[in-house]
């Protein structure tokens, strides 16, 4: 009842945020110097004022701002984000083609970072001055200070160009034959370096937060109660301490979605991963505004979906959030 209502409100709020992104997109197109007519004229090799006016009328650019905004929103509601100047194809089509690759990269990297971060965090919380704790601190500083594209290039030089363990880039090898598993293995091989590179930037962040959070819960009264109940250590640590310690880590992971997407843009560019990031790189160089804004829209969509997901997971883990306490 209440849970459903809160979830519903969250979804409505997410939709509003997305609508705001659409409006922002439109405002930016308007503020930017030059418009569609200029671009089209340019591609035709120049045009005089009369033709420009004609194009503006065709595209509805002579309408008042608010009418144009309404038309734009109406189009977006029908998944029409315009047409790419560079590829000469509908933007939605172009993006949906690339979206799975980015999602695969982003979700795998997030999951990997979370799992490794939580596991190392739990272990280093039990030995705050142990080897693992210090290693995580060092990795954290590296992940914070090293530019992610640079880490990627170094790994590329070391593992692809020098010792040939992994492919240099791309997502699949066209020469690979065989069934589903052969292709999956091929994609997995291509994924190793990009996923690892992307993970390094925030893995240690999760680990350190999880460590701090675990140290706090391990010292809490309810963990003392769990021990006083004579529960085995496994149950004390994982059932009683960890479930409480996860909350802040999940919150942080949700906030990181936007940073992960940003990192993905750079990592995809380095490893020629055929996702939204490489697409963004190509169309930005070509000043292909509709596609750029389409990518911004879809990446915001991923972040919003990620936040919503985080919210739901948070509700599953913590009953206090569930009932809005």
């Amino acid at each position: 009842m209440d849970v459903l209502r809160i979830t519903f409100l969250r979804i409505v709020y997410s939709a509003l945020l997305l609508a705001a992104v659409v409006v922002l997109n439109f405002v930016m197109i308007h503020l930017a110097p030059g418009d569609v007519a200029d671009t089209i004229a340019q591609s035709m090799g120049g045009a005089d004022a009369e033709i420009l006016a004609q194009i503006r009328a065709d595209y509805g650019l002579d309408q008042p701002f608010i009418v144009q905004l309404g038309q734009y929103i109406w189009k977006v509601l029908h998944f029409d984000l315009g047409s790419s100047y560079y590829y000469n194809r509908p933007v939605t089509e172009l993006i949906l083609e690339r979206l799975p690759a980015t999602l695969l990269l982003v979700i795998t990297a997030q999951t990997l970072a979370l799992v490794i971060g939580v596991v190392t965090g739990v272990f280093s919380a039990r030995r705050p001055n142990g080897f693992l704790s210090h290693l995580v601190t060092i990795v954290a500083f590296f992940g914070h200070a090293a530019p992610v594209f640079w880490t990627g290039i170094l790994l590329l030089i070391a593992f692809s160009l020098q010792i040939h363990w992994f492919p240099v880039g791309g997502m699949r090898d066209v020469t690979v034959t065989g069934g589903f598993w052969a292709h999956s293995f091929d994609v997995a091989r291509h994924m190793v370096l990009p996923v690892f590179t992307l993970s390094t930037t925030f893995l240690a962040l999760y680990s350190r937060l999880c460590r701090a959070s675990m140290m706090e819960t391990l010292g809490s009264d309810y963990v003392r109660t769990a021990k006083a109940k004579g529960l085995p250590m496994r149950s004390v640590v994982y059932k009683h301490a960890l479930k409480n310690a996860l909350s802040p880590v999940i919150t942080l992971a949700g906030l990181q979605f936007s940073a992960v997407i940003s990192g993905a843009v750079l990592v995809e560019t380095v490893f020629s991963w055929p996702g939204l990031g490489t697409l963004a790189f190509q169309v930005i160089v070509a000043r292909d505004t509709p596609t750029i804004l389409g990518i911004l829209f879809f990446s915001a969509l991923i972040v919003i979906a990620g936040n919503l997901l985080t919210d739901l997971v948070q509700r599953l883990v913590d009953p206090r959030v569930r009932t809005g306490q």
Partner: protein
Amino acid sequence: MSFLLKVENLRIELRMRAGVAPVIDDLSFELAHGESISFVGESGCGKSMTALAIMGLLPEGIGRVASGKIWFDGEDLVAASPARLRHIRGNKIGMIFQEPMTSLNPVYSVGEQIAEVLREHQGLSRKAAWAEAIELLDAVRIPNPETRATAYPFEMSGGQRQRVMIAIALACKPKILIADEPTTALDVTVQAQIFDLLRDLRRQTGTSLIMITHDMGAVAEMAERMIVMYAGRKAEEGPVDKVIAHARHPYTQGLISCVPHLVAHLTEERQDLNEVPGIVPGLAEFGQGRCLFASRCARATERCLTTRPEEIAFSDVHRSACWHAEGM
């Protein structure tokens, strides 16, 4: 006479930045089957450490039993293996803590937190443990136990949470229940209810009780025998009525005079409410070879400042560690 619990010359050391401090210094006492005993003293005198030592739950890496023995049912808990201690904790010895607000895990329902102990120690199935948990909630007088079992701790009041803690501690019908300041964090009216509950449950189950408190009123209400602790040492020990009627240690006298209704009832005349002046010495002073109470004591003489007082017995059951005990 066989004792359920017998502590012999227990010394607990805390590792501090400045060195090692004996928070419990040469403590011996016994607890009989079905007996109710109370540890009294201001905070910081080592009462809780005694309880944690019995449970084998001294803070890891900071506190340890340096010497002495804790005999429970013929077995030395100091030497017991971690697995053996786990078997005893929550099963043979239950414990409730001071802070009901934080002692329950916020992310599990209270029913689950009770059922968990039953599954662990009695091998009950999920279903049987849940049914038993509801019985226990009923036993600690929580209304609508079936529905309340699914509630989370934050949905309950402090008194109700402490009832849940009691249900957890008593779930496996332990031989000893240790209650560390069980009512300190609660309202006065709720305190009385919790005491009533504990008394009734004790009558039904025959569990021995070790209650740790700084409240003389609680002692008078709950315990048969009391041990007054000061700065990690036993100051006085004896039956509650005897000690209240004729305390043989100036510290005990001070504690008693803090509780007007006790004194009024016993002496028929109301005295001024006077606290014991001064504060408990810092941990760094623990373990020195003198009377640690001397700095706050009106009767202190030269001997108190140079030699640690020995325990003097006044009857089989009443003992005091004060050089001036005879004169009181």
